């Protein structure tokens, strides 16, 4: 039984992987990520890519909402800006993804700063509505700025390419998407070991106190918006390369709600929460679909009868999570770990 970790320095206390077990688990995760394309089929590879894109975006939203306390309903719009940036630069000028992806993040971050400006004056629901308005404006621009965005029909995106290497299918895109996702999550995790991350948390916990402590609210809130939007922009860029088409309807408001739900279900203010939430929100509906698939050979009317039930079950799962585990999947994971640490004693 492990009863604690003796730390003898601040550096040791700040370490992300502070025990051999944690390091081993992380190594196992990396190995699993590397091995997965060798054993997965097209469908599972596709899902893994989709999960990874959602993880990046959910992590970005978690930085803003979970860690900084700034509610946002604009994540889909930020992703859209990233997606369109990639589409325009890749399809018109053949710019490689190594440049278009950071560019997508930067353009989205710039828009995020604009959207974040009201955050100094308004909070909570008011801010949510402000970001919602930004989302509507972005959608309008996507749909009507025909010369650039292709209007309502959107833009076709060429496959991601670098030095003649074409990532034309999901299996090759997996390496790019998963690589970016790992870097994004590690970056976010590291962020909260720095003064920047601590400033974000201070703003979330009590913004007035944070200001008294010398944290420039405007600057750091806008920084949080920019960072979150950067993540969304990169996720949107990957989305564009992955689906090879962007239209105004690729990034609906429901997508923003999806990410908000993901970080709530996963656990706000926790990097792991964003990851688990994105995985849950992406894979559980798929898992529920299997039930219909498995029943159909025996009951041909299953698609008609069970499909609406699936939506109800998924909604119910989210509601039950909020009731019984308001801290989300990340807290369940932590409790599970504590259980093993302290066994045979109760946690």
């Amino acid at each position, binding site marked *: 039984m492990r009863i604690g970790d003796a730390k003898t320095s601040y550096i040791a206390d700040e370490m992300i992987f502070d025990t051999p077990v944690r390091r081993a688990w992380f190594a196992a995760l990396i190995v699993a990520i590397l091995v997965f394309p060798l054993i997965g089929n097209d*469908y599972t590879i596709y899902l893994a890519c989709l999960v990874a894109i959602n993880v990046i975006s959910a992590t970005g939203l978690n930085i803003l909402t979970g860690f900084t306390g700034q509610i946002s309903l604009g994540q889909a719009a930020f992703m859209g800006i990233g997606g369109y940036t990639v589409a325009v630069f890749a399809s018109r000028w053949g710019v490689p993804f190594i440049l278009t992806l950071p560019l997508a993040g930067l353009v989205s971050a710039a828009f995020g700063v604009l959207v974040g400006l009201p955050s100094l004056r308004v909070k909570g629901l008011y801010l949510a509505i402000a970001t919602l308005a930004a989302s509507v404006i972005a959608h309008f621009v996507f749909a009507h700025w025909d010369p650039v965005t292709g209007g309502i029909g*959107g833009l076709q995106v060429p496959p991601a390419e670098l030095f003649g290497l074409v990532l034309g299918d999901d299996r090759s895109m997996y390496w790019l998407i998963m690589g970016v996702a790992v870097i994004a999550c590690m970056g976010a995790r590291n962020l909260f070991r720095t003064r920047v991350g601590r400033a974000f948390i201070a703003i979330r916990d009590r913004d007035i106190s944070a200001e008294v402590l010398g944290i420039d609210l405007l600057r750091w809130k806008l920084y949080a918006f920019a960072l979150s939007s950067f993540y969304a922009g990169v996720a949107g860029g990957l989305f564009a390369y992955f689906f090879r088409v962007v*239209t105004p309807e690729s990034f609906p408001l429901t997508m923003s709600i999806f990410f908000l739900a993901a970080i709530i279900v996963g656990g706000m203010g926790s990097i792991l929460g964003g990851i688990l939430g994105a995985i849950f929100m992406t894979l559980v509906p798929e898992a529920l*679909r299997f039930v219909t698939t*498995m029943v159909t050979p025996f009951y041909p009317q299953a*698609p008609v009868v069970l499909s609406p039930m*699936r939506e109800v079950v998924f909604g119910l799962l989210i509601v039950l999570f909020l009731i019984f585990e308001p801290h989300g999947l990340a807290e369940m994971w932590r409790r*599970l770990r504590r259980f093993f640490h302290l066994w045979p004693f109760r946690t």
Partner: protein
Amino acid sequence: MRGLSRRDLLKYGGGAAALGLALKSGLDPRMALAADDIVIGGSLPMTGVFAFAGIAGHQGLNDFVEWKNANGGVAGRQLRYVMEDTGYKVDVSVAAFKKITAAHKPPFYFGDSTGFEKAIASELVQMGTTVMSGASFASELADPGRYPYHFIAGPSYAEQVGILLQYIKNEASGGSAPKLALVYSDTEFGRDPIASAKARAKALGIELVDEIVTKPGSVDVSAEVLKLRRSRPDYVIFHGYVLSPINEFIVQMKQMGLKTKFMGTYYTMDKLLIDQVGEPSDGFMGVMPYNYYDSDASGANFDAMRAWTKQHAPDVTYRPVPYVASWFTGMLFAEIARRVIEGGQEMTARNMKAALESIENWDTGGIIGLPISMKTHSVPVGRIYQVRFSEKRYVPASDWIALT
């Protein structure tokens, strides 16, 4: 929440194991299936905003496959239909496509939306194993150059509006130039045919007096109605809606005593409009590529479709339009397969595309009133129907019109 007991752990562990098993079985579905079955895959919206079309479309395709198999299949081979619900979400539709493709390698696939069909287009080209049709009538999908392995089992939206304009032109022949207003939703679906409609109207000498864009499903259209009152069009064509706000326009404009004729396209032209609008729907017109299930039409396939329903669902007296459309899509899939197999060729996308394009002057057996050709990957044929409220159904207002 209280701490985790070993019992809880068993519960969580059991649940996780069950989920894992479900996932595992789903990732590698194995059913007792014949190896030479011709598989039709499908991403259908059984839930979500387009569920009304998805459920009917699923039923139509399913019934066609069962009927075809009961009648000997295609060149001695059985059809098999494998579908997944998508909720009308592109990423879910793509997931369903990947899953079905990985497990069943379908030569044919039925898509649920323009977004999905566009998103999967490059992959279709890469795969070279599958041709696709579906619920979308988007004009760009009928471009064999950009989307070589897609086809539309009916007229594209641009062609549908073209048929309406041709009808308007025919009606007005000899008189003054008819005045037209276009009302459409601010969506990809709504805007699809507008540019071509304007060009065609101009070419036909139809005067476009108004153009109104609304949110899909909006209900407050008072300002737009007043605008139409000022421009006094002879015809209003609605596109990009299922119902709202068409009902609002019709009711309010009829209350004002305007004699405008209202017209719709495929997704508007079903019983929902008659049921929801009631008496004011009387006289509403629109284009329909197929004969209505309750029409007086007859033909080998059309009669077989109705007989199958009578036999297997005796309580059902009407099948929605997407049912007929899906049945017809199934017919085209089967015809493509027949031509490829009887030509002694492999079921590759290239061969199936050639087979599709070889369909010329093909009798649809009463589903469509004219022989059709698939050279352009769409069927630019339709008929103008009109609501006869006393009978609660659509009746023909014109003969069949083929766009040239």
